């Protein structure tokens, strides 16, 4: 057990990040179990604790009598310095066991800019960074989360990845481990990984070797073992009502990013926005029934004492029984002072009405994501929202008493022109003016938050080049110059970070060395603007002779082989190409949720189906 002395804890900010013992946290004795699993999100406690996926898996694994699951997050830089100065290894929150003593260390990879933190945490734990160098008794390092749809840039650091939803497959992995251990670990580490590769949804990168042609272009994966499937398809929960899930989430003592109950209404979203990886990767839509949701809400409220509940999903307002569910929940919790919220609002007055009912009188800001400033651009990305939709939605909001509205946009989308960018400023101005029309006075606060588009694997834009740094910065200036109303606040992202994300998002395995070199130079917490140092990365690229533009700056050919296609969410390449073509023509593709199947191939490939309670599907 790692001991944390008072002078150490007094020296760091928010010491409660490291002291565990939260309500509903587990704490089994390791002698009593056959498998120990440390779950991590390689970010600080407040961010890591807010991740729904890890909460679910933590609880599910802890239900097994043979397994102890614990948590560990990235120590903030002050704590890291103290730990290194005192030679303290990375430890788990529950039992303060050094992480290297666990059988498994599982990282949830939510975004690319957190990769160097994985290396930093492995290093702090004293676990060999490169999977190939790990000894027989070392911890198995597991990856999961949305980044698995192109995990090659960090593949060399992991023993295996879980592709897709983890609720079922993680238990299968643990059972396999326990059986292998009971047999006396036949064949050692290698044999365990070979067996693991036989589980559907498990990707063991060491069983695959990427091939490159004479020009250095990726040309396919060679499989080293017949146990390794040519394509590892994601695992998917068929029926969200039947699946095991979270009922007693850990309640932190300190304020975290999402400090409330997360009630997951459904999984997947098939609106088909062409830039959105989540929309392609989490298909098909599978709703929970209203009854199941009510019972989960009750259980979680009783088990935690939380007074806030968020109805989460990729686009919660699309839940078919939302109206009725909200009524039922408000009735179930009448007199209990529980407030409900929708994290993502659809751009329509139905959503405003609901938000109004749920928030009662607390009028915090409303957030919408039109994503682009002109109809042409919105058609290109298949964001089926018109200016009229938006104006109606904000009108309804202003009428109901809201004053501040936040609008999300992207810069650098394929085919974008300056007119599309100026369109963002114009749209924001119209929203400001609408307030004055309705209220007869000024007073709206409109924030536009503009990110830089990063083309992602398994989207119709996976072939597209990303804008250069200079172009992003020119566009940001152009937009800024076109905002002349003082009620509009303009926030934008650091384009350098987005460019780097663009490299990693569609990179290949050769980038493992770059990530390593950047980390060695000091890169960590790259997603935190005060911690990001571009020079570490630029130096690393240069030292290794890697040209980042090769990954983020070029238009890729229709026939080009991609280094991510062997870990697949099941959506077909043909569908993605067709969507790319349709986007060029500004043609919309409807949602398959209540309408016809539009042929993305996920359902037949994975033998699943859309579950929509209203459509009776």
């Amino acid at each position, binding site marked *: 057990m790692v001991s944390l002395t008072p002078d150490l*804890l007094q020296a760091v900010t928010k*010491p*409660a990040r490291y002291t565990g*013992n939260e309500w509903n946290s587990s704490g089994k004795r390791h002698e009593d179990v056959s498998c120990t699993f440390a779950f991590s999100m390689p970010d600080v406690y407040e961010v890591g604790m807010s991740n729904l996926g890890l909460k679910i898996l933590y609880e599910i694994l802890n239900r097994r009598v043979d397994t102890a699951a614990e948590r560990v997050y990235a120590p903030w830089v002050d704590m890291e310095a103290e730990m290194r100065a005192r030679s303290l290894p990375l430890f788990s929150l529950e039992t303060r066991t050094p992480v290297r003593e666990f059988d498994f260390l599982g990282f949830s990879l939510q975004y690319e800019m957190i990769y160097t933190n994985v290396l930093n945490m492995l290093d702090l734990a004293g676990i060999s960074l490169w999977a190939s160098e790990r000894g027989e008794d070392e911890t198995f390092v597991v990856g999961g989360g949305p980044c698995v749809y192109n995990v090659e840039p960090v593949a060399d650091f992991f023993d295996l990845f879980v592709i897709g939803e983890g609720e079922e497959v993680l238990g299968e992995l643990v059972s396999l481990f326990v059986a292998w251990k009971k047999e006396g670990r036949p064949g050692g580490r290698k044999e365990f990984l070979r067996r693991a590769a036989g589980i559907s949804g498990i990707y063991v990168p060491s069983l695959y070797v990427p091939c490159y042609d004479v020009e250095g272009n990726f040309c396919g994966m060679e499989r080293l073992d017949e146990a390794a499937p040519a394509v590892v398809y994601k695992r998917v929960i068929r029926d969200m009502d039947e699946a095991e899930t979270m009922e007693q989430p850990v*309640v932190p003592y300190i304020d975290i990013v999402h400090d409330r109950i997360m009630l997951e209404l459904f999984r997947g979203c098939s609106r088909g926005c062409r830039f959105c990886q989540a929309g392609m990767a989490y298909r098909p839509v599978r709703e929970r029934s209203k009854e199941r949701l009510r019972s989960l809400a009750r259980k979680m409220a*009783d088990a*935690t*004492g939380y007074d806030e509940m968020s109805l989460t999903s990729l686009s919660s307002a699309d839940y078919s029984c939302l109206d009725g569910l909200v009524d039922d929940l408000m009735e179930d919790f009448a007199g209990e002072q529980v407030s409900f919220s929708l994290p993502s609002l659809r751009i329509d007055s139905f959503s405003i009405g609901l938000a109004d009912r749920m928030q009662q009188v607390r009028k915090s800001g409303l957030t919408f994501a039109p994503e682009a400033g002109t109809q042409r651009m919105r058609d290109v990305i298949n964001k089926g929202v018109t200016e009229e939709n938006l104006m109606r939605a904000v009108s309804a909001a202003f009428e109901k008493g809201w004053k501040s509205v936040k609008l999300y946009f992207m810069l650098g989308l394929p085919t974008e022109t300056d007119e599309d960018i100026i369109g963002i400023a114009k749209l924001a101005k119209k929203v400001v003016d609408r307030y004055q029309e309705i209220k007869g006075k000024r007073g709206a606060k409109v924030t536009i938050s503009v990110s830089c588009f990063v083309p992602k694997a398994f989207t119709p834009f996976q072939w597209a080049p990303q804008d250069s740094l200079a172009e992003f910065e020119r566009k940001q200036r152009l937009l800024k110059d076109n905002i002349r109303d003082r009620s509009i606040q303009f926030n934008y992202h650091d384009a350098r970070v987005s460019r780097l994300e663009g490299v990693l998002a569609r990179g290949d395995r050769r980038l493992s060395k770059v990530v390593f070199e950047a980390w060695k130079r000091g890169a960590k917490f790259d997603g935190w603007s005060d911690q990001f140092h571009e020079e570490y990365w630029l130096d690393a690229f240069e030292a290794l002779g890697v040209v980042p533009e090769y990954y983020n700056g070029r238009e890729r050919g229709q026939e080009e082989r991609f280094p991510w296609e062997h870990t697949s969410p099941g959506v077909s390449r043909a569908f993605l190409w067709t969507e790319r073509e349709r986007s060029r023509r500004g043609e919309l593709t409807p949602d398959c949720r209540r309408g016809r199947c539009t042929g993305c191939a996920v359902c037949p490939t994975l033998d699943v189906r859309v579950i929509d309670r209203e459509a009776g599907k």
Partner: protein
Amino acid sequence: MSEGNKNAAQRSIVYCRARITKDEPLRYISHLDYASLMQRAIRRAKIPAAYSEGFNPHMKMSFASALSVGVTSDAEYMDLELSEMMAEDEIAECLRPALPNGVRLLGLRIMKGKPKALMALTDEAGYEILVPLRGAFPEAQAAIGAFNAAKECMYLRKTPKKTREIEVRQYICGEIQAEAAENDLLCIRMAIRITPGGSVKPQEILTLLCEKFGLPVRAETALIHRCGLFCGGKELLSAGEVKP
């Protein structure tokens, strides 16, 4: 009965006071976070707490005196308003299993009428500090003796906002006690006055003892524990009751 009528009929507020602890597992929790963990515990216990009216209703709960991060306590006092009558034993029985590891319920009373605010009642706090001794015990005794003998003692209080010099001797009731404890630890006991005009934190006194009086310890290695809170020398659980 409609919801409104029911509320009106039940608007006989019950005041409940509890003495609870903040033990080792919660040492590094801030006062605000401690208050919210208690609110969640009360909700889990399904005790009928009263809430404020208005846009952002909050549980009607108040504490005697904020406790710093890093300090444990056997003497946290909390007043809670209930919207319905509930017997003392019953409240305790519901609350105990809902308390996290690190909070124990030491006492609980239904108050007679609306009590005076705990914050206003509290005039003295007792602390015990355990800190590794880095010199000989007589050296420590001498340092503390010198502090006790001083009539005045200035301390430079630095907050992120401002720096200001305050006289702290006035806030120490009587003398600070010191004794040698096991494992080369020094045990320091002090009673601190809490006045409308201000007070001092035990950490501040300890820092002062190190910096100005040469107490041979490192202040940052100290474990500080609050052992009591008082009103006119009386334990707070029954203080400040107003005759109904």
